[in-house]
């Protein structure tokens, strides 16, 4: 049994509950024990780093200091939290005098997608796969901060990443080639400049559909909420038809591994994924 600390972050306790549930579900099937950090607080997200660098570092470092109290790695499912944590880690390594909390940069920070895509986990997934996702064409959408900046994420193929594609192949799905894998969806502007966000959404959804994907797969709660919730509204404005389900990679892992709660997770989506998966005989 593998053990790892777990920082869900605010979204996974709210709009991204199905991401939280599916991570917990899949971990259990793969014999990974999650320990949720006690008393975790918000990482500070975009608003902190857009306001004050030190405040941003402190809010992130507080959680990393909690995680450092034990010798487990820290699993982080939200890309925004992950990016803020990596920034705090970089700061404490380069300028330890600037970080006043008792955080020393010793806890390995693992983004959920990277964690589930490592060689050992892929082997496990292959062994335990109950239902291959045959015939399901997926557009792997990495978004921005899962890969950028590479000096923080360590992702080598940051212009054309392949790790989620490899995971999807292991699940039996068919990742389609497309050019918008790492383009931003603008999620941080969703409440303030919705017009910009809709334009970016239209581009991403249209390109995934042009690549003939049945669904788009992500590991970011902001990208998911952003792309999932506004399709109907967008259809009225552009006259196009989208209806493209936006799934978490962990939901598809759960489906391939035969988790019993998959339907519960999928019912939380605004753009219905059940119909597409049903049509492929997967549910």
């Amino acid at each position, binding site marked *: 049994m593998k053990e790892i600390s777990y920082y869900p972050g605010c979204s996974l306790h709210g*709009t991204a509950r199905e991401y939280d549930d599916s991570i917990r579900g899949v971990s259990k099937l793969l014999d990974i024990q999650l320990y949720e950090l006690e008393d975790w607080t918000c990482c500070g997200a975009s608003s902190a780093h857009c306001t004050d660098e030190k405040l941003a570092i402190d809010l992130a470092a507080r959680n990393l200091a909690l995680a450092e109290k034990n010798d487990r790695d820290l699993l982080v499912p939200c890309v925004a939290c992950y990016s803020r944590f990596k920034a705090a880690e970089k700061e404490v390594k380069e300028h330890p005098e600037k970080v006043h*909390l008792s955080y020393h940069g010793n806890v390995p920070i693992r983004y959920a997608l990277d964690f589930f895509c490592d060689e050992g986990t892929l082997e496990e997934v292959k062994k335990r796969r109950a239902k291959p996702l045959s015939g399901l064409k997926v557009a792997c959408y990495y978004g921005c901060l899962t890969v950028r900046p590479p000096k923080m994420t360590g992702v080598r193929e940051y212009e054309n990443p392949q790790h989620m594609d490899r995971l999807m192949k292991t699940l039996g799905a068919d990742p389609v080639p497309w050019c918008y894998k790492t383009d*931003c969806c603008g999620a941080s502007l969703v409440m303030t400049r919705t017009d910009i966000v809709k334009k970016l959404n239209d581009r991403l959804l249209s390109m995934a559909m042009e690549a003939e994907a049945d669904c788009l797969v992500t590991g970011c709660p902001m990208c998911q909420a952003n792309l999932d919730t506004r399709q109907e509204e967008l259809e009225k404005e552009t006259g196009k038809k989208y209806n493209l389900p936006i799934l978490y990679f962990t939901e598809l892992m759960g489906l391939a591994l035969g988790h019993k709660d998959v339907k519960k997770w999928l019912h939380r989506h605004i753009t219905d994924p059940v119909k597409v998966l049903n049509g492929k005989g997967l549910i």
Partner: protein
Amino acid sequence: MTELNVRENQKGNSFLSEVAQASGETISACFQCQKCSAGCPIAYAMDILPNQMLRHIQYGHRKRVLSSKTIWICASCYSCSVRCPNNIDIAKIMDTLRALAIHSEFKPGEKDIPIFHSVFLDTIKSKGRIHELSLILQFKSKTRDFFKDAALGWKMYRKGKIKLFPSKFGGGKEIKEIFNAFEKGART
């Protein structure tokens, strides 16, 4: 592009050194290849393109830069930073510019975005975690735009995506200390 006032530069460029020092980036290395602007997904909505922004800083156009829309609508996706042939972390410079703009005398080029950030931080300060419903209601009460996305909010509530009450958290004392330090720093 707006006209570049070279004379301002001749007075001694304190703005360039201020931004360079605060961000730790070598802004003078920019040779206007425009790769940053070519790859920026939001460039179409900006009043100053990323490459133009660097030139304006080089020329010391403090007001033009700090009252721009660009610094607020930049989504920090880091496409510009990873593609810059001179290794200038442009997204990081945008962070520096936002912080300078908040403390400047200029009216922000975008009305709602700085309000959103301040409401977001207030929510962390009072609740430790972001409770989405509190955040949305507070933001709406500040921008007086109550009906935008109301139907979507209801749909999300029915899907169990919106929690009515914030979760309890410990660590309030530490959060308070972090914000005290921030507010003290902002005053000085």
